[in-house]
């Protein structure tokens, strides 16, 4: 919308120069730095939580490790679009067995889902030490790299839709956390990450986009309401298998609609 406005203004006045086009980006500075803080908090939390998970694995405590698996992942899932800027780390931290030709038996299969496979399928921490150490080294590396990163605005703003694409492509089918069935945790974290970005930039577009804002707000709320039905008393989520077909359909429609709408956020903010 801002871009459209600028373009028409530029065409109408003919003398508008680069300085005009640069102005709106100043508005982005505030939300961008707030988002950077959000990401830094999450990656720091990820390191802390991973340390606890690694400790449980090394202590051979399968049940404790299982209980820490899903909550540890959420910090990663919230900031996935940024984390994925480092594709080498994303692969070793979060790849799934079906990303590999030999699936679970593939030597390159590491990270969260390899640990998940060990804890739930092999019901043991045996042999997981190596993967645990590697995971901790990877998330620590990630935390360091992100702190040194200048956030590209189009990646941050685009991340709101990217997180919905994540849900649509891998979470809605229940294949992300296939051994632990903790997909709803990831689901929730992806939504939180997306909503965070949207909320930070909403003030910049609210004025000319009342219908859009009302629709997106409504869809985030609808998702929250569906997910709330599956909360456990301790703040976690029940198994993905308990998600009913009609709720899955509802979530699917909301995710796809949010993905469609949030895909216009970059354009609305004048980011090509």
């Amino acid at each position, binding site marked *: 919308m801002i*871009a*459209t406005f600028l*373009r028409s203004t530029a065409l109408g006045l003919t003398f508008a120069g680069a300085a005009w086009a640069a102005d709106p980006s100043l508005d982005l500075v505030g939300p961008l730095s707030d988002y950077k803080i959000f990401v830094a908090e999450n990656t720091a939390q990820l390191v802390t939580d991973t340390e606890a998970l690694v400790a449980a694995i090394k202590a051979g405590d399968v049940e404790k490790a299982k209980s820490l698996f899903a909550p540890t992942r959420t910090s990663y899932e919230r900031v996935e679009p940024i984390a994925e800027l480092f594709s080498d780390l994303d692969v070793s931290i979060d790849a799934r067995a079906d990303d590999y030709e030999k699936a679970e038996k593939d030597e390159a299969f590491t990270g969260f889902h390899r640990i998940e496979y060990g804890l739930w399928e092999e019901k043991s921490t045996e042999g997981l030490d190596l993967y645990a150490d590697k995971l901790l080294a990877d998330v620590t590396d990630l935390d360091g790299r992100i702190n040194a990163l200048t956030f590209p605005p189009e990646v941050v703003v685009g991340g709101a839709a990217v997180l919905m694409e994540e849900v649509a492509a891998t979470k809605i089918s229940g294949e992300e956390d296939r051994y632990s069935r903790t997909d709803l945790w990831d689901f929730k974290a992806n939504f939180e990450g997306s909503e965070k970005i949207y909320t930070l930039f909403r003030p910049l577009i609210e004025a000319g986009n009342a219908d859009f804002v009302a629709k997106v707000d409504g869809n985030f709320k609808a998702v929250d309401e569906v997910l709330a039905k599956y909360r456990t008393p301790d703040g976690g989520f029940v198994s993905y298998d308990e998600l009913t*077909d*009609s709720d899955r*359909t*509802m979530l*699917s*429609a909301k995710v*796809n*609609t949010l*993905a*469609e709408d949030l*895909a*216009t956020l*970059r*354009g*609305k903010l*004048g*980011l*090509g």
Partner: protein
Amino acid sequence: MRPYPSRREVLLALGASTLALATHAQEPAPQVSDAPPANAGAAAQRVPFHGIHQAGITTPRPENGIVAAFDVVATSVDDLERMLRLLTDRARLLTQGGPVPDLDPSLPPADSGLLGPIVMPGNLTITVALGASLFENRPWLAGLKPATLQRMAQFPNDALEPGLCHGDLSIQFCANVQDTNLHALRDIVKTCAEFLVLRWMVEGNVPPVIPDAGGATPSARNFLGFRDGSANPDSNDAALMDRVVWTAGPHEPDWAQGGSYQVVRIIRNMVERWDRAPLAEQERIFGRTKMTGAPLDQPGATEHHAPDFTADPEGRVTSHDAHIRLANPRDARSQRNLMLRRPFNYSRGVLKNGQLDQGLLFICYQADLEAGFVAVQNRLNGEPLEEYVKPVGGGYFFALPGVRDDADYLGRALVDAARRT
């Protein structure tokens, strides 16, 4: 006549075409990357969208088709109305064609672009139908379900895959080229994301045949190599279509007059095994000759000659369990079991066992689901053809009445009725 031309004939023909090319030397030689030339007439073909019935049912079947089934997210009459209005707008636009709107390039484009800046109609029809599940768990639609609409049953030979069955809503896309259908499907998936969640979809096509001197073509062949549709009722006979295809009468809700029950069946064909079956057995199973489609009691006739089963009461020529004899016994009683078939062939890669995943995307329309498909399929249960076919999916749907004009929309009468109750 020899079945194949001699080598000499082939060489001569090739020489002739090389000569023909040489005489058109002024035309640039096509490049590898050039698009294959389209037929301008076929691209411009437009099926009227407005009418008392939806298009895509009694209108001629083009070469390509898709059936997509969706789950519907609509928690109120208002939602349903918004969805049906949106679907109508998209279908009207897509089937009639036109330029794609230009948007600010920093936004996602309005259109996938598959068909370029001007969408050519390409003979596209979009036919929308509702499944029984749409009416369930929606108290505001209570009492409005069409009289014989029901969830597709599992027949004895079926091996239904849940991911390929049922749906709240089906959309049948038919067009001259598959890209036109895929473009329309993608448009609807994108624009109706709020209401429609894709459940399954199957693409199919029928092989085109060179018309005879009078412009007529025979029935298309299925993947078993037989002509399919020979005994279809005449789709140009409006009175017959009123009786066989379109719903009418006090047993149907008022809103559901002028619609049609749509049956979709995804019927896998065991083609390797079929190709190893003796020809005589194949013909016995169908009750028709393979090459011409003529009934076995008149092997020199054409596919359109009706078999005379009364002259063969013991089933010596056409076995009692031959497919065409079971499906349509040609007696007075079975007249009420007629339906209009409009299938496509599908090919979906390879099965786990290394066999080809090919079959029939069976689609038929009838005025009464139970008297039509259900009765016929019950007669077919146990037929010898079952050795070679396996229904794996599909669903029963009710194709909505047509959209009368620009102010009307698909299912308006249903929405109005729901508001009254």
